[in-house]
């Protein structure tokens, strides 16, 4: 597993902020892939953040991620990079002084926030467009293990969207769950909440 070919080619390199240098953190996935990630991005992963905060561990030693595959980590990194970029579009909060100048700047902030929101919406729609249900599940597990709240919420919301108007059988297939109700029990639930079972999409 050579280092070079497994590095995720990043189509959207982050502008290096002054003083941050090109500090990277090395991560090693369960299938042996090595990723060198900008520190800012890696610190989005709660698990990585606490690992490096707790120990005065040298950043050059690769951190093992035994529960994450290379393909999943690559997608996660793409998401976090883009997310950081979008967040940097919003200028930091201004001070509490209420002056006319601040009020004008506030409007500019509002515009920037709107633009950032729109960018995020488009990016997120694109991000999961071609992912299979299995891939999404794998991403959820990775985001959960790496402790990335924003990504995890986004993924959970997306899965909810995928199953929300579907049948019970679809949800079972999606998650690989076996139904364990007797036909009578299931019929009883369907009758009790009959209103909830109306108007469901055809599988």
């Amino acid at each position, binding site marked *: 597993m050579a280092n070079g070919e497994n590095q995720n080619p990043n189509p959207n390199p982050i502008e290096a902020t002054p003083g941050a240098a090109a500090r990277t953190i090395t991560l090693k996935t369960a299938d042996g892939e090595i990723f060198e990630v900008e520190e800012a991005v890696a610190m989005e992963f709660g698990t990585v953040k606490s690992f490096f905060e707790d120990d005065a561990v040298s950043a050059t030693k690769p951190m093992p991620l035994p529960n994450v595959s290379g393909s999943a980590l690559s997608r996660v990194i793409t998401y976090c990079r883009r997310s950081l970029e979008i967040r940097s579009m919003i200028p930091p909060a201004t001070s509490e002084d209420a002056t006319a100048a601040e009020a004008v700047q506030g409007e500019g902030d509002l515009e920037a926030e709107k633009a950032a929101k729109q960018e995020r919406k488009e990016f997120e729609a694109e991000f999961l467009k071609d992912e299979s*249900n299995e891939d999404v*599940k794998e991403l*959820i597990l990775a985001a959960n293990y790496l402790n990335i709240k924003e990504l995890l919420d986004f993924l959970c919301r997306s899965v*909810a969207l995928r*199953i929300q108007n579907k049948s019970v059988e679809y*949800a079972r297939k999606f998650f690989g769950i076996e139904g*364990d109700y007797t036909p009578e029990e299931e019929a009883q639930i369907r009758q009790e909440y009959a*209103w*909830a079972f109306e108007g469901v999409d055809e599988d």
Partner: protein
Amino acid sequence: MEQKTLWFDNIAVDIKEVAGILASYSELSGEDVEENNFISIDTYLPNDLFERILAFLPIASIFRAGAVCKKWNSIVHSRRFSKNLSSILSRKPWYFMFTSGSPNSYKPIRNDNGYDLIGYAYEPMVQKWYRFELPCHGTSICFIASSCGFVCFMDNDTRSQLYVCNPIPKISEKFEIPRYLIFSDYNALAVSVDRSSQSYTIAMVMSKRATHDFGQWILSIHIYCSKAKLWVSPVTETLMGCRGGDDCVICDGVLYFLIYIITELDLTGKPDGLLTYNLSSQSFCCVLINRLIPVPCPLTCGRLMNLKSKLVLVGGIGEQDQPSIIKGIGIWVLKGRDWEEFALMPSMYFQGLGNFDKVFASSGFDDLIYIQSYEAPSLLMFDMKMKKWKWSKKCPVSKRLPLQCFTGFCFEPRLELLPLGMATGQVFCGDPGPRCCP
């Protein structure tokens, strides 16, 4: 071992149906499972991740999720899940619309469970109307209030029973009120809940005709505190030529209600001003007129709402001299002792409500206000945050009899089974199902 084989069977089924197969998966057989580390990642999601996903679902989907398997059923019916629901995703209030002979008193339909008010409930998140049956008790009931997730009905016959209902899990409870509190001519009720301490306060404002003419009314305020389990009646006042109404609201520890002026020309009364009663300091000025906050303009129909701790008034704007003409509908927010005009209904929506009398139903919660005319099943929504008006999808409810009207109220969608286990009285549940209640 067996588990992993089963998992692979499921994977194979899914892959056949999904495009973009990863070649590596299809090459692996059962024996390779242990040798490849990344395959041993357990793609069975842990419970807390299921919980997180399910919390993003619209409510109807959550109930369907309970039918997927017993584990999911216990998740969606757990206390923790329903408590966290609103913190994960902010949920707009639902609207329940139904037909009735009169806008104020209803005759539920009898069925095997007792009595149900049959109508349609609107979930704004998915813009769907569901056919709903609200559990009721009694052949003739009257809607009193929808506050903090509790929908309260009063029994018209005895006028001494209060029923508290949570429409979504179809749970209702009888709530005992003291003997001396027989419901009066006008009854207003509001609930305020402190979810952190699991305590609540009920406030009732009652107006009773003291004499046969319109002249004298007795206004009383009654408060119930769940912690002390005690009813108190701190205020009883005789009013001349004015009375309280049928709605009141608790907002930041203060009780607000409208006072209606009654004249020879207008015996029903029209809103004149706002009175306040501070629940914590319990201060109430005895000389009412001095403390009255006048309404912002001649109102023909006024409704008070607590929208994110703002006291909001929705009312029909009338002509000074012609109280039966309504020329618009406005929304005001109380700032201190002044009304600030927040929005005016644009004329196209006003026309869209149709030819309606000066009264209409309006209710709201959080950032959403619902307005409907009694004459048609169309529902108008106003988003306070975005300041946008929008029609909801048309409600499929229809009149059973030609002289009926359409009416309704909004309610906060909550999944908790019991309305905080309110004190005393029986609990009436819906059909007992295979439900786990941890």
